[in-house]
């Protein structure tokens, strides 16, 4: 089993409130329980096998917000319900209780993040942490302190392994 929460070191801190460590199995359980989860996938997934993992998660029926130019990698994947949106826009809409989601079907209750630049996603999450009550989970290979929960700083191999575990439990 990939232990993804060993290294929770932060380089700099935003303040006293930090993400709780998240293990893949727990994350999977939370996703399963959620009514309207959303997977937010960033363009870093286009660089390696993370792409497949993201698709596999999406294929479990989780709608996808494809930020940056991630659509390039997702548009032809079958069984993936993905829509493009700028992540800064998304961060803003998510704080608006009136936003009905990418598909107009109502607000999300759990947001997963994968494939983003560490510093960028921390910023976007800083907005969500301070101005929304959303549950946010980072399944990145860095500890993303502004999420509600996050994997730790892990090696790329561990990361892929953890994603596999997560997929298996969905």
């Amino acid at each position, binding site marked *: 089993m990939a232990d993804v929460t060993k290294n929770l070191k932060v380089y700099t801190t*935003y303040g*006293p*409130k930090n993400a709780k460590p998240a293990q893949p199995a727990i994350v999977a359980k939370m996703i399963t329980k959620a009514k309207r989860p959303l997977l937010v996938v960033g*363009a870093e997934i286009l660089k390696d096998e993370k792409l497949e993992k993201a698709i596999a998660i999406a294929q479990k029926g989780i709608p996808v917000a494809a930020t*940056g130019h991630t659509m390039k990698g997702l548009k*032809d994947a079958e069984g993936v319900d993905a829509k493009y949106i700028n992540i*800064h826009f998304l961060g803003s809409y998510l704080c608006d209780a009136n936003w009905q989601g990418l598909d107009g079907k109502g607000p999300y209750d759990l947001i997963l993040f994968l494939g983003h630049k560490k510093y960028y996603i921390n910023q976007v999450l800083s907005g969500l942490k*301070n101005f929304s009550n959303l549950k946010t989970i980072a399944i990145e290979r860095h500890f993303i302190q502004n999420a509600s929960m996050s994997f730790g700083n892990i090696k790329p191999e561990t990361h892929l392994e953890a994603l596999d575990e997560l997929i298996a439990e969905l």
Partner: protein
Amino acid sequence: MSELKSGTFSIEELENVQITIGSIVGAIEKAAEEEGDVGPTAKPGISDLRDWDYKLLEKYNPVYTPMCDQCCYCTFGTCDLTGNKEGACGINMEGHNAREFMLRVITGAAAHSGHGRHLLHHLIDLYGKDYPLKVGPSNIIAPNVQLVTGKKPETLGDLDDALDYVEEQLVQLLATVHMGQEGEAIDFESKALHGGMLDHVGMEVSDIAQISCLDMPKAKENTSLAEIGMGTIDPEKPVLLVIGHNVAGVTNIIDYMEEHNLSDKIELCGLCCTALDMTRYRTEGGDVPKAKVVGTLAKELKMIRSGVPDVIVVDEQCVRADVLREARKLMMPVITTNDKIMYGLPNRSNDDVEDIINDLKEGKQDGALILDFEKLGEVAPRLAQEMSKIRKEKGVTALPTDEEFKELTSRCVHCLACELDCPTNLPISDSMTSAAEGNLSPFEELHDKCIGCGRCEQACPKDIPILNVIEKAAQKVIREEKGKVRVGRGQISDPEIREEGVNLVMGTTPGIVALVGCSNHPEGTKDLYRIGDEMLKRNYIVIVSGCTAMDIGMYKNEDGETLYERYPARFLKGNLINVGSCVSNSHITGAAIKVAAIFAQRNVAGNYEEIADYILNRVGAVGVAWGAYSQKAASIGTGCNRLGIPVIVGPHGSKYRRALIGKPYDEEKWKVYDARDGSEISTPAAPEYLLTSAETVEELMPMLAKSCIRPSDNNMGRMIKLTHYIELSEKYLGIMPDDWYKFVRTETDLPLARREELLKILEKEHGWEIDWNKKKILSGPTTKSDVSAQPTNIKRLCKEAC
């Protein structure tokens, strides 16, 4: 002439002529105001444009992404504001973040106008207050100054007055940073916009002062090309490196070198905007630039660490704080020349030139503060010659030898501390492994993305001088770093606006893309080349400035040509224009103001709201600060925003803490008035943000096209813009954009080649009624097609209103 004191007195033998000094001054002010129509907001105070700001902020909502959940401004703190809690003074996270953002904006504005003040003092000393402003063939000499202050400046002295106003207002804004001032975020936002506006005045003052006095190109189309890149510097010659933004003192160096026939003997080169402004100095007549450009801030530490410079002269802004500490190690004397940066160096301004040179040569001091530019002009080049000899004799070496390189790369224990500390989390550790195994390409690639900040070294537990390792590994690449940059041309002239204005407002020129800002790119400098290349091919007007103007000249096509060589530099579609240094950014807003003034005949002076409203609704321009890092970029962008120009920053730009993003799904918010009768027009959100970040260059491309769509576009313009939007989305994201149909008002808006296909989509996916015989849209669009509609956000500008 006898000296007059304040008070009332009469002139000899002319008893009935009385002059009151106080009122003469008053009269001057009054006279100036009465020159032509002055709009309602000459020299606006903080509250005077608040209504306009509120209109913008209602559409474009502040989105806060704090850099820190705490506030540490006053000693009641530190206060934890997490979750929008209130601190000990009652301010909440929103309010504090808006305040933080405003502080960054006014810091940037102060940097520019502080620079302007220094330059202006200097130039007035040399040329006098009555020296006329000369910016090229324009009647609108200073669009920002005139728009904001209500006065058209004619002389250097007039600029003084504009700066007085800017300074007064900046201090008012700084005052509100104090604990216990503004309590609501929205009014801090309005204050931030105020600061941004002031910034463009400050920048414009700086640039037109130097253009006027220093023989810089004056709205010239075909300025020369300057050499750029670390590879262009000849290390065999004495190398004199200048760093900063304020060219004042450097002009004396150039003059001295020319007078003493040293221009060929010394390699004079520069980093950051001083470099750009050196190339502008005395090239009005098309002369060859008198210096080379090394590059941007990202090259500062790299250039010093290369060991090549013999003497470093710094002025102000964007100068690394460790220049002296780094240079000291390599026996490069540092001369500071501006009171904003003095590095604790002894003030030698009043000392004898020979003494200064001797002391520095002998290493008695690491450097000197020289505020006397005459002396600086002589000391710097002479010292460079001396130091070149000495440093070569002593064999000062900088980068590691091949052996040392091996040792260093093997020393790495792969703890990843450096990567965690690297602002962009670059893969240093793996590159070390490859390099140790003899494969340099990972480091070569890393070199381009590395902004040369040195943070990795601060973190390394094995004390590996990581940057030196990178630079050593990238030597081959660095030697090839040779590009071209077109010398900054200053303003866009009135005749150019007269020619191109209609195309811009109608949309037949698809838009202006202004690429500005610094070198904090997420994926290396080639990003900029890609953007420029794509948009130029598509006939956008691409305007560049500052570090972006440099970076964009570092790439060549297969024919070895940079974009500057491939595209002309007039204010016309498909042209690539370098306005100049950072302060030249004011010419970008200036051009937008001129479109309203010249093409639409709107009054400029003191008429901010109307002009901004015009630009927001009709001028398809977008700013991109892809590598923005500095507070100045925040103020430049914010100044664009208040004027109705949207701006996109790169991912690091999210750290400015706040964006201005609309909610297109909240359709009520996007109505505008038709100025002809005050009726409401429903429009799609265009632009849908004023400030946002984008994740990748690929995402940026279609965003740019979309950001240039405006309610006033005519059918042809709309078709052109939609074509680019759809094509770019397909090219870079692989998909048709979700919202293209929202911009369609009539079938002629649709790209000709794909009209049928698109009509089908409209029918099928969006339920629009199509008359398939005539290929006409019968119902569907939210906005009625009406070429003569006059969109505005301001009720009072409507004919039937109020």
